[in-house]
């Protein structure tokens, strides 16, 4: 508890990251896939003398430039702010481990953004070959950003045994390469590249569908078919990459997927399966709509079709990213740091010496006695990363009508049960001294009482 706690009522901090990510990811992946689409289409147009494609590509590149360099870049920085506020410990670990990786990524970002601007503003102003070279420069630099960030993202699920062996020693950066090229690096990279390519096709369909068929004529139809070819094969390849990724994740994460087939009883566990179903359904729909409408009958392809495909692609991307986050539970960095920022190797210390004793935000008095203030600090530090008091994963609902004794025994279960216990499959172990746990129970009871009082008031009002 080295950092202040960012209390986001009702939705919780995690959803702030999630909401920005849902907006950012379809754009950032388009920034990479679209970067490949533009020079490839331009190359084809020049090679086969389809010069009527060029004005269309120019229009698409304007949309591309505005969307990726304004909305994509701003929301990307937004994610940075959000993760630093919601998960400061984990962000600190990532920075300490991957600072040079990130520095290199930012170099590529600068090249990428510059190249995108030059590419758009030099249409018809520089020789074709040079213009195309700028496009390729953009494509390569944008892929390089993915190559780097993918190492950091996949590290969070599977940080590698080599890195875990030095975790907490201060020498973590010495294991940069094993941590970077971890067991899920390659399947994750391939999967993301396929997503980028599919999104490039879908976004191109959005631009093309807004062009008047009578005005753009045959070129529009041909380009719609060309864009469809970027989408359809991906939906054949993606399940293969997904299966590869699935086989690479730790077995505990795979079990989450199987559990949800049978039941919805175990709460968030089964979300992974449910989210998996959404991905399956939405991607299959996109493939069908793109094949039957864009590829088979390009003249009939409308903006409504393109917008539906895009909406479904956003849902599919958001669902997959959510599942990726969910299978990491109870960790934020697999096997090392729990989702509430506690390090696995510090659990015994916290239980022995107290959790609040390590906090910069608790006074010595609060650490030693059972009181509400200490309970609030315990809640914020250990529960607040995933739970809110009365909104998303509401504690009022989860505690329900339990009395003080029942709450305390539940908390002891969360503290003492074996790491293989049901709760620990998705929740970090609770830590703290006896007094600290009692303080937390006191605070949770007060939340539960507030909830009951509200319900009673409603009943009273309802009966009047």
């Amino acid at each position: 508890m080295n950092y202040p706690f960012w209390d986001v009522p009702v939705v919780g901090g995690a959803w702030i990251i999630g909401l920005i990510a849902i907006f950012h990811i379809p754009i950032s992946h388009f920034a990479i896939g679209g970067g490949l689409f533009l020079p490839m289409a331009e190359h084809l147009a020049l090679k086969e003398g389809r010069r009527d494609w060029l004005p269309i590509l120019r229009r698409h590149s304007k949309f591309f430039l505005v969307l990726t360099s304004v909305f994509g870049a701003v929301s990307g920085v937004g994610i940075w702010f959000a993760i630093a506020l919601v998960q400061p410990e984990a962000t600190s670990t990532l920075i300490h481990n991957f600072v040079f990786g990130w520095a290199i990524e930012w170099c590529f970002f600068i090249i990428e953004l510059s190249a995108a601007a030059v590419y758009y503003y030099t249409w018809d102003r520089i020789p074709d070959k040079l213009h195309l070279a700028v496009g390729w420069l953009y494509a390569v630099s944008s892929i390089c950003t993915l190559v780097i960030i993918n190492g950091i993202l996949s590290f969070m699920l599977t940080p590698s045994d080599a890195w875990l062996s030095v975790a907490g020693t201060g020498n973590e950066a010495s294991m940069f390469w094993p941590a970077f090229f971890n067991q899920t690096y390659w399947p994750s990279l391939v999967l993301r590249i396929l997503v980028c390519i599919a999104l490039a096709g879908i976004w191109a369909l959005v631009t093309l569908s807004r062009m008047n068929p009578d005005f753009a004529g045959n070129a529009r139809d041909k380009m719609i078919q060309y864009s469809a070819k970027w989408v359809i094969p991906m939906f054949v390849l993606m399940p293969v990459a997904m299966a590869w990724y699935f086989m690479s994740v730790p077995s505990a994460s795979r079990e989450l997927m199987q559990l949800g087939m049978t039941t919805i009883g175990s709460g968030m566990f089964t979300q992974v399966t449910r989210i998996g179903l959404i991905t399956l359904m939405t991607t299959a729909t996109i493939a069908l709509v793109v094949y039957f409408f864009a590829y088979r009958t390009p003249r009939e392809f409308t903006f409504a079709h393109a917008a539906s495909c895009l909406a479904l692609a956003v849902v599919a991307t958001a669902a997959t990213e959510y599942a990726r986050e969910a299978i990491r539970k109870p960790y934020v960095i697999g096997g090392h740091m729990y989702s509430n920022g506690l390090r696995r190797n510090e659990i015994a210390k916290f239980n022995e010496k107290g959790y609040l004793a390590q906090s910069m935000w608790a006074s010595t008095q609060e650490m030693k006695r059972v009181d509400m203030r200490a309970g609030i600090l315990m809640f914020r530090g250990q529960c607040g990363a995933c739970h809110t008091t009365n909104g998303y994963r509401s504690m009022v609902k989860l505690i329900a009508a339990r009395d003080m004794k029942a709450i305390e025994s539940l908390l002891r279960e969360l503290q003492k049960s074996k790491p293989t216990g049901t709760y620990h499959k998705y929740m970090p172990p609770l830590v703290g001294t006896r007094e600290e746990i009692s303080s937390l129970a006191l605070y949770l009871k007060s939340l539960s009482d507030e909830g009951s009082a509200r319900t009673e008031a409603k009943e009273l009002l309802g009966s009047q």
Partner: protein
Amino acid sequence: MAKVYDYLNDRLALDEIKLFASKKTVPLHRHTFWYYWGGISLFCFMVQLITGVLLLVYYRPGPEAYESVRQITYNIHFGWLIRSAHNWSANLFLLAVFVHMFSVFFMKAYRAPREFGWWSGLALLGLGMIFGFSGYLLPMDELSYFATKVGLEIPNAVPVIGPVVANILRGGLEVGEHTVQRFFALHTVILPFLFLPLLMFHLWMVQKHGISTPPAEEAKPKAERKTMPFFPNFLAKDLAMWLITLNVIALLASLFPWQLGPAADPLKPAPAGIHPEWYFMSQFQTLKVVGNLIPGYLGEMVGMGLFTLGLVLWAAVPFYDTDSKNGKRARNATYFGLFALSVIVITTIWGYAAVM
């Protein structure tokens, strides 16, 4: 592929069907979007049929009803998904039918010669609502038990025959296992037996008279009116709508799977804020309001009288809005439609606000 087609064509006359379908046209104008809602309703109904049959494999009416739904939800592979898809598609079905009905009303598609299409559609909506009501009790959990108890107050309020009908539905004075048995028979045998032929009739009416054009479009010279072929254009778009609907059902079922509460216990007090499903909320709230204004039996009579009058006026609209042009009567019918829509929306929101 061509050989297979030829083989089937020789025996089933596929070319004739294709020719017939390609001659059929659908009016193309700024309200064409509303034409898809009938198809969406049909698709939701088909999803219910399929998922309903799958649920039948494991569901056991009577005293084991709750336990069997518990097994479906928590033990059987993807049982929760089938149950959730069934429930969500039922809700979407009714929503789509409501949208379809109001779009038909405002586009004046009930006018001659389409009166029977209008009436059969209304009857299908009525049956759909009874489908929803009878299905809601089947899990026999706390919520469905008490909501059914409250819901049976509506037929109970019908003067003279109401209590008798409510007793027949309940199978006694209280909601219990006999009620589940009766509702099950109603839900899986009687209602489909009535619904399916009526649906066929409704579709035949649409086929017979074609899709109607709103008066504003009809007023245009024939040369200015646009159409699209039913096959393949409209059908392809309709199928795309079905796909979108399937996605919506899958999204809702996956993100908000239908939960199962504790088993119904008649000795327990009803949980706070118990209310009927959203499609009965308007009637429920209206009865409550009228009951508060005019207490006692008279209030019930007035409440039910208002309903009956509203329904009769709604169903009889083809009789008093007969002009082919948008005259005074047509405007009055539109105002009546807007009034009915406002009443339903306001009383539904009011009903929810009162129980929240």
